[in-house]
């Protein structure tokens, strides 16, 4: 059994360490390789023929109009679509070369490696401290929990604001602080990848910029994929951008597909596809 497969199936420790060692200095290695990805919800063909490579220690942004399938594709990276009964995923999603949908892959272990941050901050109804300590405790963490809580909150640029109120409820925090708490919670279990589904759309502009700055800091340790409606956010924060669009299939269903995937600078200064240019310049449809 290969090393990453081994980890996904039994021991999810230290993925970032061994995986990053094989990365070449010039071109970052692919954390995910997606080919011919199709997602169905029952009869509904939600996403058609998507192929992308997600590079290590980069921020990859998925943009596009509502219904374009960007969130659906994001949820394939940690098998969140498994939680939807009618969902069916076809094609290949490889994580460090391992088929994420392989028979012996445990989706719970997948989610340990590939953390997720959601649109609406969703702290547990617990103290700030316990929000961070919860995941590591479940995982049987036996190290110094105080240090882990402190370093996780510091990595999420929240420590200075909460260090004196660690025992207060997480709900006492502002929306922006709650979202940074959720990021701290996600990184407390040392994931390899962070998936972010509209992580700033419920926040004010300054809190949004703080999250973006935090993402810049985090990418030295993690690989990040962000779905955002806010294409300016994708422009500001990401290294590569995938533009998804919607089209009607032969059954008259609105199916999402990938239009263009390139370096973010190229997408926002000289996109190859007219559809991309129309979308980013606001001349869409």
């Amino acid at each position, binding site marked *: 059994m290969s090393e990453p497969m081994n980890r996904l199936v*039994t*021991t*999810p*420790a*230290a*993925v*970032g*360490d061994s995986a990053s060692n094989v990365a070449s200095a010039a071109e970052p290695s692919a954390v995910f390789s997606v080919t011919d990805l199709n997602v169905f919800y029952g009869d509904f063909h939600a996403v058609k023929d998507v192929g992308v490579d997600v590079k290590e220690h980069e921020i990859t942004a998925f943009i596009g109009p509502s219904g374009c399938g960007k969130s659906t594709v994001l949820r394939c990276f940690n098998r969140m679509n498994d939680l939807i009964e009618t969902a069916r995923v076809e094609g290949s999603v490889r994580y460090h070369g391992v088929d994420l949908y392989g028979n012996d892959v445990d989706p719970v272990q997948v989610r340990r490696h590939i953390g997720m941050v959601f649109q609406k901050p969703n702290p547990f109804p617990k103290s700030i401290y316990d929000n961070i300590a919860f995941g*590591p405790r479940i*995982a*049987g*963490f*036996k*190290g*110094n929990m105080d*240090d*882990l809580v*402190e*370093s996780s909150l*510091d*990595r999420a*640029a929240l*420590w*200075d604001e909460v260090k004196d109120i660690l025992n207060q409820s997480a709900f006492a925090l502002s929306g922006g602080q709650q979202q940074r708490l959720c990021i701290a919670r996600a990184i*407390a*279990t*040392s994931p390899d990848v962070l998936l972010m589904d509209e992580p700033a759309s419920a926040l004010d502009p*300054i809190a949004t*910029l*703080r999250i*973006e*700055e*935090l993402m*810049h*800091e985090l990418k030295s340790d993690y690989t990040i994929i962000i779905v955002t409606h806010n294409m*300016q956010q994708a*422009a*500001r924060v990401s290294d590569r951008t995938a533009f998804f669009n919607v089209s009607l299939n032969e059954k008259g269903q609105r199916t999402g597909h990938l239009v263009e995937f390139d370096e*973010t*600078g190229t997408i*926002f*200064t000289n996109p190859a596809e007219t559809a991309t240019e129309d979308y980013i310049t606001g001349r869409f449809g």
Partner: protein
Amino acid sequence: MDTRDTGSIGTGNVVHRHHDETRHHFSEILDEIRNGMVEMGSLVVENARRASVALVENRLEMVQGIIDGDKEVNQRYAELERLTFETLARQQPVAKDLRFLVSSTRILYELERTGDLVVNIAYIVNDLHGLPASAQLRSLVERMAAASCDLFATAITALGDLDEVVGRRLDADDDVVDELVEAFYEQIGKEREVIGLEAGIALNRLGRFWERIGDHAVNIGENTVYIVTAEFPGDTHLALRDED
């Protein structure tokens, strides 16, 4: 659960990171552009001083080095223009950041043009095969070149420090260059019989090139003032100013 699961969680020691500024990454890009322009300007000044030496000492072997030096200037121009362009597209700059980026595109042009003028001066070294023997002419060439190089170096300093006061002062300082150029033209006129037509034309162009370098320095200073204050000196846009 396998205890090896927990091996990777936490590092033991808490090392605090610095989370100082909301848009730290954006500020770093702006610094990169500003530092890049200062480096580019320093290359131009260095090349201009070499051109001055080549001219006065009739060092023909230096000409190719000056031409090659300008290729590096052009390379930096292309890179920085691209970065500026991309930053405008990606970072939605406003206020001072917007003025800085838009002004950067103008300043990059001034720097690039000045680099070309230095190359033109180097070609004149080839054309002249040595300055005329006149001590007065030679002295004027040296002083004119030095004043122009100094003014340009001051403009680069003003830009690097975003120093509005120095930026504003350059226009007056440029009078020194203009006066030396005028005196140089007069001297060419006085010595025209000795110099001859061909050399006279070359020297005339030489004066023009050093004068233009001074003008580019003034423009860089005025753009610096604009970045800092949102107004050009004298409240008049560069393009609406009477050329003197």
